[in-house]
């Protein structure tokens, strides 16, 4: 157990150092070359635009740590958003939002049970969920829904001092989630399952229950992201969120998470989110054409991961010793 802790901590420090450097470099480049970057408007944009990807990335991280993947998050965003917007006509806003988040939790739990209890491949289960939940969003409403009550916009537009409320919510998820993963028994079990599920089973820990928990957390994050996005835009569309899972996975991987499970941290994933959002923002401020943005984003992701690779063997060797 002590070796595990040291190993994890050792790797965290490496990833952190790499990120602090990378993010600092991005910010310095941005601030010195674009006069729009350090404006209040742009910084507020950055804080708002990282929220959806951030929430999805944390949920995705928890699932990836178990060695799984959750491809359904984009569809859950659409479903929770449109159901919430639809219910606002009949229910008080907070209650409608609660139903939206609850739908995410329910979808996540179903994914988890299918993966854990029926031992189906996570890729297949969540791919099926991706199409099923997207279909349900369209069944619920084919056309966009715009709630008439202006109170619906409060969550997405409220500011706490200079910081948007939704950014604080996302930071809280990373803060609490980080502590959950690193310091609580269920969190540590989730990481250990991704390392070696059999060992965890032999240690007397209920592996299935923890896997269900992981997917449920991902569903919760996606449901939350759905209501936040809808409240921000003011209109729920059943078509929203296509390919959102890709950015979430990219953020985790950039943040040092291993897709085979057992390795990754909330701090790393948050760094990954920052990198993605900063890249997007910079390319826009420079006026890089959209198709080139896609190309550059892909290349930058590969470059970041390659840099991490070169760092890995050293800490790997330390850990395995």
């Amino acid at each position: 157990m002590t070796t595990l802790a040291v190993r994890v901590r050792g790797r965290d420090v490496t990833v952190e150092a790499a990120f602090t450097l990378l993010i600092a470099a991005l910010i310095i480049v941005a601030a010195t070359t674009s006069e729009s970057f350090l404006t209040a408007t742009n910084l507020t944009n950055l804080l708002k635009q990282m929220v959806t990807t951030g929430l999805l990335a944390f949920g995705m991280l928890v699932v990836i740590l178990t060695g799984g993947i959750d491809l359904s998050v984009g569809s859950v965003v659409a479903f929770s958003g449109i159901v919430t917007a639809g219910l606002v006509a009949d229910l008080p806003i907070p209650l409608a939002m609660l139903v939206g988040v609850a739908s995410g939790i329910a979808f996540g739990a179903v994914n988890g049970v299918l993966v854990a209890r029926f031992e189906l491949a996570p890729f297949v289960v969540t791919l099926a969920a991706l199409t099923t939940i997207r279909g349900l969003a369209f069944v619920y409403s084919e056309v966009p829904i715009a709630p008439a009550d202006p109170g619906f916009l409060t969550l997405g537009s409220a500011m706490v001092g200079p910081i948007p409320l939704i950014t604080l919510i996302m930071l809280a998820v990373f803060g609490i989630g980080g502590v959950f993963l690193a310091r609580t028994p269920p969190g540590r079990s989730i990481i250990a399952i991704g390392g070696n599920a059999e060992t965890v089973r032999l240690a007397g820990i209920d592996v299935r229950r923890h896997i269900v928990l992981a997917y449920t957390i991902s569903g919760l994050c996606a449901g939350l992201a759905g209501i936040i996005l809808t409240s921000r835009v003011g209109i729920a569309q059943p078509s929203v969120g296509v390919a959102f899972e890709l950015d979430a996975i990219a953020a985790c991987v950039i943040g040092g998470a291993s897709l085979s499970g057992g390795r990754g941290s909330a701090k790393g994933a948050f760094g990954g989110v920052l990198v993605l959002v900063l890249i997007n923002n910079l390319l826009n401020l420079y006026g890089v054409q959209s198709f080139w943005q896609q190309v550059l984003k892909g290349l930058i992701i590969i470059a970041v991961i390659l840099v991490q690779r070169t760092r890995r063997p050293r800490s790997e060797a330390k850990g395995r010793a």
Partner: protein
Amino acid sequence: MRKALSLVLVAALGLAGCSDDAAGKKDGYTIGVANFLLSGPYFSGMDAAIAAQAKTKGNVKIVSTDAGGDAAKLAANVEDLLSKNVDAIIISGGPLESAPAALNAIKAAKKPVVLVDRKFSTGEYTSWIGPDNEAIGKQDGEFLAAKVKGKVAIIKGGPADNSIGLARTNGLKSVLGTKSDITLVEASDFGNWGSDGGLTVMEGLLAKHPDLVAVFCENDAMCLGAQRAIASAGKTAQIVLAGVDGQAEALKAILDGTNYVVTGLNSPNVIGKLALDRTVEVLGGAKVEKDTVVPSPQITKDNASQYL
């Protein structure tokens, strides 16, 4: 995604069609509708409008198919419709530039084909009914030119429907590009035709160009998102919006006298209804107009109520 659901629907409709054929009535028509994709409200609205208009005729059966955005599937669907021996086919081609395989199969079967919304750039068709997207862009441009001076931003939808978007933007540019008191700026990233995309792109524009006076979006959905971003930035009094389509929420915003000032109607209901009528006329042996441009009235606060 929507594929599974639409397959079930198609199967159900197909079965319904079959059983009616079996009843042996030959005084009515069966018309096949080949949709390239039904996922957007515009396209599903078109499909629904065609079916609704068919119902009013009493003797017209509709068999609708969805290719889920796959051009090869569209051709296969058309072949299936032909083998079901439909009397005519309506193609809602969405963003497709052309569909040679589908059109050739229909030509070989000697059936009439009516195109809605999208006019294919190649191949033979009986008739086309759709909007003039460039004219809608021009209309918005003229309205803005009379209303504002200064920097006007353009939010583009992106590759999913690029030539329609380009036509709209080019129409706008052909008017505003010649005005000395107007500067045009184009957002570098796409809004992807949705409100969330419009919001994000607008946030970026506001950071880069704080002095904007107006925004044109290639559709209403993006403008609705952009309107939120402008409101959050506290610039509602400074920036007006111009869209295209006539989406219900946009009409409401225009009617309420917000900074959403104009849009151009591009109604799937009108086009779908006309297309079904046109197809029935063709089947009745009438000589019809080849290309029909459906007028896209300009909608402002003065007339928005009549389109809601």
